[in-house]
């Protein structure tokens, strides 16, 4: 089935928030802190602006707690007495003219008395830099299996390594934006670009002293999210709402690109230290990891990012003795947040790069090292989860190598590299896994709900809070419902996520949409049949007629099938000990990258890429392939091109000229293959897919560059400048 809203997007008719013409709307602007930490001494409103024409909002206008509700409430909506990061919002302005709003914003000066800021997450803070607890550590999490110290002591070889990944900016092509107004019934309506309408509802009700029924949040067409519109939209929505409430008129608040890049969340920077013990046969016997994430100035989602990071950190391998110690640390950087992969790309980079280092140290082929250690069914992960999904992980690796013509190309590269004056070619491999859905008891806690309504004409409407942001929600939900009920796709409506109409099916994150919410759609369809007194065999035209007949017999009433999340059987997770079944199921992948490095300019270029994965049954081949290709290219950017240059903890290369994402000329065609082992508890047998493609490309590329040049790559982005340092100057930059 072709993407359902595809033609609307291709002809420019799909309405994004900035496309909406809202009568009488004012334009909102945000005035922000210039300093990474300090006390606000004064806010000066300059000359040259007629302030009587400008709506001004600061923390004193808040009707309730000055808190943006995420996991905790430590982040203020607007800074009051103190600031904790550059670009922290302080004052909001609105004016009928966008130009005038900009001028007004430029005329406001926030005067901050600076305090000692902490900007390096690696070093312990000095006493005057402590702003949380006694050591700035927001969260500590530990995974322990067996006795790692004893196993390391007994190991034939112990190999150490330290790896770092940099921040990454989402660069969704549509910037953050919201429009807010209070309607004739006194309901606060907020429409805009977001992944999680109910997160926004919670933030609004928590802060504004309004009941659930006095708030209505509607997702408009969303031009990309990648996690960047998971939590941050709550801030934008609160700001737009506050301005609208004060102005008594609608307010549109749409970020400019430079502002969006500098002031919103990014991928957590990471540092991972490995101590790995292997036996004489190249088998992993001990893995000790220290994982540190830079959380930035507020908690946001860091505890969950850290959780996912450490759960994946030891890789898809068998090892009886594992100790993973994770910390998420406060710095006065712009707070970091969700980004596709959510901690796993960071730790997979470290682990998969380290696997090649281990192989090299042992004189083993990196492919062979992986073969010897990849989990087989019946074996357990670092948290003690026994894998039993029937996926042939070795076959994934085999297929990837075959599609990449690995052996043949590697031999050809060796000859090529000996002869060419300045080009070097190499291949790199990475094997990874990615847990689908929320961790542990997260899905139970979410208690997601879905409704499938039977309409008077016999068609059905699927009501969920899951959002379409390009990954294909609308199309796949149509397919799931149509397949389950035997309907034609045109007889299935997907409701716009409008919290006055749809139940809370949870956030659109964690690769859960098809697997978890899709499954709920199937069960809600079953419930619809039950309410009609029909059994599971009722499908197609007969079912459609039954729905229509019911409406004729019950005019004006509502016919709804309902489903609430139930966990698959046998899932056991202990939050206190971090042991058990971390995820209901995992996706698995083996990726191969081929690079060519130009030693004149130290520039690596990806010349071929093969991505093989098993994510259960593929519901829509074009959409699934598109997710993999897009994720791979986004990860290529993270690995080679995208560097967040920070000053005072904020991005100074906050424009697309200077923050380099791949163009069509920078990447090869991404060759994709799926092996399908259906997952019985996922919608149409699917597992989660959207984030897995971010996990393997960066280490595969770093491994390929190392193979091509001998450079001991340990950090990304592996820019030409950094590669030059590695190759010309040795490891001076590498921490001990």
């Amino acid at each position: 089935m072709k993407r359902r809203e595809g033609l609307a997007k291709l002809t420019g008719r799909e309405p994004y928030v900035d496309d909406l013409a809202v009568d009488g709307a004012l334009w909102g602007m945000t005035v922000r802190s210039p300093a990474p930490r300090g006390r606000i001494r004064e806010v000066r409103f300059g000359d040259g602006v007629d302030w009587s024409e400008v709506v001004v909002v600061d923390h004193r206008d808040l009707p309730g707690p000055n808190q943006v509700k995420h996991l905790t409430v430590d982040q203020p909506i607007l800074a009051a007495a103190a600031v904790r990061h550059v670009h922290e919002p302080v004052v909001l302005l609105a004016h009928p003219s966008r130009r005038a709003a900009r001028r007004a914003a430029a005329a406001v000066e926030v005067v901050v008395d600076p305090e000692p800021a902490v900007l390096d997450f690696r070093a312990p803070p000095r006493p005057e830099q402590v702003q949380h607890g006694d050591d700035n550590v927001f969260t500590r999490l530990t995974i322990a299996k067996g006795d790692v110290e004893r196993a390391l002591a007994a190991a034939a070889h112990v190999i150490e390594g330290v790896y770092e990944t940099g921040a990454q900016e989402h660069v969704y092509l549509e910037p953050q934006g919201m429009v807010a107004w209070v309607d004739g019934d006194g309901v606060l309506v907020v429409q805009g670009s977001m992944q999680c309408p109910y997160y926004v509802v919670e933030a609004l009700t928590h802060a504004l002293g309004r009941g659930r029924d006095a708030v209505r949040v509607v997702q408009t067409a969303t031009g990309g999210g990648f996690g960047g519109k998971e939590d941050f939209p709550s801030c934008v929505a609160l700001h737009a709402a506050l301005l609208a409430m004060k102005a008594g008129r609608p307010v549109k608040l749409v970020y400019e690109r430079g502002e969006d890049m500098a002031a919103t969340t990014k991928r957590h920077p990471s540092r991972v230290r490995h101590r790995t013990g292997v036996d004489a046969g190249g088998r992993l016997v001990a893995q000790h990891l220290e994982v540190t994430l830079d959380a930035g100035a507020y908690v946001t989602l860091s505890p969950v990012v850290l959780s996912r990071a450490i759960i994946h950190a030891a890789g898809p391998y068998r090892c009886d003795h594992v100790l993973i110690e994770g910390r998420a640390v406060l710095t006065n950087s712009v707070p970091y947040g969700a980004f596709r992969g959510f901690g796993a790309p960071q730790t997979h980079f470290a682990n998969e790069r380290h696997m090649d280092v281990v192989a090299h140290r042992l004189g083993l082929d990196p492919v062979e090292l992986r073969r010897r250690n990849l989990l087989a069914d019946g074996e357990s992960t670092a948290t003690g989860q026994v894998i039993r999904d029937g996926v042939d992980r070795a076959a994934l690796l085999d297929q990837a190598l075959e599609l990449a013509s690995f052996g043949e190309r590697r031999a050809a590269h060796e000859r090529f590299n000996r002869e060419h004056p300045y080009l070097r070619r190499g291949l790199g491999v990475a094997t990874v896994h990615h847990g689908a859905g929320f961790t542990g008891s997260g899905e139970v806690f979410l208690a997601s709900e879905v409704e499938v309504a039977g309409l008077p004409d016999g068609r059905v409407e699927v009501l969920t809070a899951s959002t379409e942001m390009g990954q294909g929600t609308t199309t796949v939900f149509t397919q799931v419902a149509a397949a389950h009920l035997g309907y034609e796709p045109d007889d299935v409506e997907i409701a716009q996520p409008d919290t006055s109409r749809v139940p809370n099916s949870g956030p659109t994150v964690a690769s859960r949409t098809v697997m978890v919410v899709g499954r709920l759609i199937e069960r809600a369809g079953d419930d619809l049949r039950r309410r009609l007194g029909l059994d599971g065999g009722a499908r197609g035209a007969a079912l459609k007629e039954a729905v229509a007949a019911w409406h004729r017999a019950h005019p004006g009433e509502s016919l709804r099938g309902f489903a609430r999340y139930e966990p698959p059987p046998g899932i056991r997770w202990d939050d206190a000990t971090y042991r058990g079944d971390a995820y209901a199921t995992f996706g698995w992948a083996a990726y191969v990258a081929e690079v060519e490095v130009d030693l004149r300019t130290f520039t690596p270029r990806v010349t071929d890429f093969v991505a093989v994965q098993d994510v259960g049954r593929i519901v829509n081949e074009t959409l699934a392939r598109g997710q993999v290709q897009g994720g791979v290219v986004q990860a290529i950017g993270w690995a080679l091109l995208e560097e967040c240059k920070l000053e005072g903890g904020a991005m100074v290369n906050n424009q697309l000229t200077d923050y380099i994402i791949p163009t069509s000329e920078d990447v090869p065609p991404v060759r994709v293959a799926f092996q399908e082992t259906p997952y019985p508890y996922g919608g149409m047998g699917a597992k989660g897919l959207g984030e897995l493609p971010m996990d393997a490309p960066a280490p595969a590329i770093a491994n390929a560059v190392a193979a091509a040049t001998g450079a001991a790559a340990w950090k990304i982005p592996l820019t030409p400048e950094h590669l030059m340092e590695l190759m010309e100057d040795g490891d001076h930059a590498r921490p001990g």
Partner: protein
Amino acid sequence: MPAQADAIEVFFELNGEPTTVSVPASDRLLDTLRYDLGLPGTKEGCGEGECGACTVYLDGLPVNSCLVPTYQVRGRRVATVESLDPAELDDLHAAGATQCGACTPGVAMTARWICEHPEVLARHTVRQLMAGNLCRCTGYDGIVDGIEATLAREGK
């Protein structure tokens, strides 16, 4: 703040129709299309001529409308995504050229221009010609595949 004290009348051809608009001299063509002419199909992704989401045709060539002063289109021909024939976009649709859609209007414009002027492929590859349209979702394969399918179907 002064109102339209410096308004300029611009008479030009827009999507095949003669059009007049009165706008501040400091407006960009992108602003005029989106906010004064009711054509929000053209998108603003960066404001610096890097992403191409604002691509329109000016006298038949694809340009970034965020870098065109509206006053410069006087007497010229402008075409926006709203003028594209949906039937000609089918291969792009089928190949997965669009996901979130934010870059898509610009992509569609450049893609159609290539298909209307295949002679440029004598000296440029499709990927080179599409390098001015940044996409964060597709990884470009769906876009390139869609353009190649269109060229094949149109016999070019």
